[in-house]
């Protein structure tokens, strides 16, 4: 095994004494790239824990580009987490050139990692099928041999592959406390640590680490000058304990994942790309749909969805049946309740229509617009599911769902694709409303029912805000498959042009 020391770039041993010479000197000093550091000097970045990221070679340029993008994002995430510093590109290239001669890609990578002497190394392999992009990412520890972890992810959006890998890397940092080595001691008791501002240490701050109190006097990017109240002669490293903000890092990536997924599936970026999708959505709900439903209750709601330019759309017949049934209840319940004896119109009262019944009649006719809206939103939810599109305002889906539930019974649930729950809220709220109106002057019954309606409404709003969307194509991109057992089959080609058929049963622990 060739264990050559990798040359470290040390460009720039130069002082700029005149403006005219600056550019020339920069070029000159950069050209002296292999000038070694003097023995007593420390290169701060070389003292910290490090990681090298490799990608498996591939003949397909698109996969190669995706692999590189993924590797860069993974490096960026490592950099952001502040525990393992990614090895510099030129060093990785140097190590790969040294190691690759006549070897298979797998062993070349492990040899290169040994040459770089990093604490961890990551190997990313990307492949594609007609519908999905796949990535396998493996972390291996060089100095911690026990560490070996593999993630297999897939996505229908290629741009999400780097983000998903980055999220796993961010979450990998959960609980990795900061542990720094003392790399130099001074006469006055101060010592140099291989952790600095990049790791989250702050100058002037005192840290309690077990029985020792460590005060950070100065911080560089990767090293710090510190002192302790007690003797440190027998201590070689200090456990600060503070973990990186892995959840926060993953949350930032989640936002980016959502953004790319919405850009891929959103109505505003697909079917209504050249139009104002938000305007069309509101116009469809407030103008087109009521018109359609007035002409043809139930089916009119499906016809109104055409305004959002769905292609090859098919109606959901059970949904139409439910909405038509509900419409008939709105229209004819008082008549049916009185044996079709009372006047059909709510504003006409006769001897067969009691005052309570007239109140109920007015309420039921007055809430017909809710029926129209719910029928429309139900058909929309069905179409969003089947055509794999996301509704407008989906970036602010929780606020939007809360608002929809506020103005339409179950509206927020329909908005997030939970059709059954939406119908449940609709029928509950309308029933309680009707009961309250009917019994308004019957002791406290009406008031109690109104109170219950308020409570259900509040639960409806909160539920629609808190619940996640049910669109599987969206959740598959944004959520981690961390709790379920999954069966995966795959057919892809490796870097060596080898056909691979795989079947795997995954149970995350």
């Amino acid at each position, binding site marked *: 095994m060739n264990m050559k020391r990798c040359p*470290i770039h040390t460009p720039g041993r*130069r002082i700029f004494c005149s403006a005219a010479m600056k550019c020339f000197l920069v070029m*000159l000093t950069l050209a002296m790239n292999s000038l070694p550091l003097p023995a007593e000097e420390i290169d701060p*970045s070389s003292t910290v824990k490090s990681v090298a990221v490799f990608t498996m070679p591939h003949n397909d340029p698109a996969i190669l580009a995706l692999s590189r993008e993924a590797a860069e994002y993974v490096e960026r995430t490592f950099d952001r987490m502040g525990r393992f510093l990614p090895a510099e590109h030129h060093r990785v290239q140097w190590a790969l050139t040294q190691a690759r001669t006549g070897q298979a890609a797998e062993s070349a990578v492990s040899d290169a990692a040994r040459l770089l002497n990093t604490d961890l190394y990551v190997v990313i392999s990307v492949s594609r099928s007609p519908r999905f992009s796949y990535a396998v990412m493996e972390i291996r520890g060089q100095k911690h041999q026990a560490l070996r972890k593999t993630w297999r992810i897939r996505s229908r959006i290629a741009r999400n592959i780097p983000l998903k890998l980055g999220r796993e890397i961010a979450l990998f940092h959960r609980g990795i406390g900061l542990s720094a080595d003392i790399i130099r001691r001074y006469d006055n008791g*101060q010592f140099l640590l291989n952790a*600095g501002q990049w790791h989250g240490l702050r100058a002037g701050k005192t840290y309690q680490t077990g029985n020792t109190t460590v005060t950070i006097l100065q911080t*560089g990017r990767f*090293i710090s000058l510190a002192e302790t109240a007690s003797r440190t002669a027998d201590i070689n490293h200090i456990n600060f304990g503070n973990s990186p903000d892995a959840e926060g890092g993953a949350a930032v990536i989640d936002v980016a994942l959502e953004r790319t997924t919405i850009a891929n599936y959103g109505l505003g970026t697909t079917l209504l790309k050249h139009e104002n999708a938000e305007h069309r959505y509101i116009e469809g709900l407030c103008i087109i749909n009521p018109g359609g439903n007035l002409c043809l209750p139930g089916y009119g709601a499906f016809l109104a969805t055409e305004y959002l330019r769905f292609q090859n759309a098919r109606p959901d017949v059970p949904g139409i049946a439910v909405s038509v049934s509900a419409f008939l209840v709105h229209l004819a319940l008082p008549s049916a309740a009185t044996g079709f004896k009372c006047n059909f119109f709510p504003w006409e009262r006769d001897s067969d229509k009691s005052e309570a019944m007239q109140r109920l009649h007015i309420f039921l006719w007055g809430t017909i617009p809710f029926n129209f809206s719910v029928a429309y939103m139900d058909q929309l939810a069905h179409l969003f599911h089947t055509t794999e599109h996301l509704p407008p305002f989906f970036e602010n889906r929780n606020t939007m769902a809360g608002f929809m539930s506020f103005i339409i019974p179950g509206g927020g649930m329909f908005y997030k694709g939970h059709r059954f729950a939406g119908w449940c809220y609709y029928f509950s709220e309308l029933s309680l409303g009707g009961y309250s109106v009917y019994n308004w002057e019957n002791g406290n019954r009406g008031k109690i029912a109104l109170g219950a309606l308020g409570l259900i409404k509040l639960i409806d709003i909160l539920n629609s805000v808190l619940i996640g969307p049910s669109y599987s194509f969206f959740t598959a991109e944004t959520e981690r498959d961390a709790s379920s057992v999954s069966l995966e089959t795959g057919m892809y080609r490796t870097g060596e042009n080898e056909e691979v058929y795989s079947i795997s049963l995954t149970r995350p622990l």
Partner: protein
Amino acid sequence: MKKLLLLLLLAHCLAPASELFAGKPLAGISGIQSDSARGRSIANLLEMHLYNILRSTNSFNQIDTAQMRSQLVRFDCLEDSCILRFAQRADIHLVLRGTVRDMRSSLDIEIYALGTGTPYYGARIYRYHIRIPLSRMSLSTREFSYITEEHAGRFISNLLCRYRFPVAFTLQGGASVPDYPEPLNGTFTLYRFDPSPEAREPLRSYRKAGEVRLENGRITSLAPGTPQPGNGDFVFLTYENKSRYLTDFYRGRKRELVLTPWNVSDTLYIMLFTAPASASMPLVVPVLGHYARGDYAGLGLWAVNAAPYLYLEADGFLNRPQKLKKENRDISQNDAARYNFALYFCFAGGMSLFVDAFAQDYLHQAAQYQDIQPLMGSSLSAAYLSLICGGGGHFYRGHRAWGYLYFHLNNVMMYYTLREFSRAERYNSDTDSYEKEPVDKARAYRYLGAYCALKLIETIHAVLLDDRIENGELVEEQTAITPAVLFDPEGNLAFGIQGTMRF
């Protein structure tokens, strides 16, 4: 001859920095990375503006950006660690880096500065992360140039506010003088390095040694207990004044570019338009205001916040005292108050929501350099709107949260004040006339006093606020507070809350 020149240069290269060079801090821009063609052109604009603004401060020696970037790229020296090594060797005190990420509907710009030498030793000094929404705006090179200049200006200004450059004292003819090309004036804190670690170590600790007063680069006095500055003692040069100047300059420049100059006639037009605008608010604001302009958040806020007052207004007009009198019904204090409030809300109070519907859009366009926005940016108009309607001045300035707070406070106070001044009237069927009931005037004036105090505070606040014409949204992700469960060295579970600050 060429060899001789090269040798001379090499000798210079290997000489210690402090012996050769004393001057302004040296700054370089190591390149703004990008991930698309549009991002590349924006990154170029950003680099150009960063360079020019830094030069305009006259506080730094600078390296040509293109040369530096091309050399770093050539040697694949693109990571912070490599660039820091280079900067330390080349005695570059300040390195500016950044990225422009094209997210289709927005641009993510991140710029940061790394400092070498005391007191930074490679640490990141300042990081600026902004998201610029791009949808539904016609942005050409002109607008992008203005936008990148604004952000470059804000970044440099905030950086200068934090940056400190150590100026060491040297002995010249037996006297200690600061080693800086320009004469220093003022009182400075004197610092002295600890004897250990030594000068060649990567990090050194230093302590405050006292205070010195400098005039024209000469020590004129020392604070009591301050030792005579020796070789290597230093003071920190700060750039706060230049930072303030830059902030003021770019704020003023943007106002000139996107807002009309201060004009009394604009306020008069707003005054004349107040009553029709307020009266038409319930229809105009949701349809022609928020909906037509795509401000759906505004539409939702309007619906939720305006509903109770619109109900009061409608109720006040529907059950107005004149109508009740025709029906010979008693007029309660609430009936009278609702009618008075309805009059107020119809002819003045609704103006604030009218202003919100349009000002948000105008200011958003101003923030994106989309032409000069009429009627905006006048303190007089802000004061007038604050006086006549709740939160009007704040909505006019673009501060929606403040606006709604004052809107509700104002309306609630206004209603109760009107209620205290409103007199109930009882119908006397014997005389077929109405008898007015007395009001508690002292109590009514107390309410009026409280209302006037609120208006005074609101008006002053609105006048002192700046118009929200800053481009982009600052991405706040530098700090996080999270619950933590940790094992201490003895293996015991420890629960707590941890705060994280990213640099």
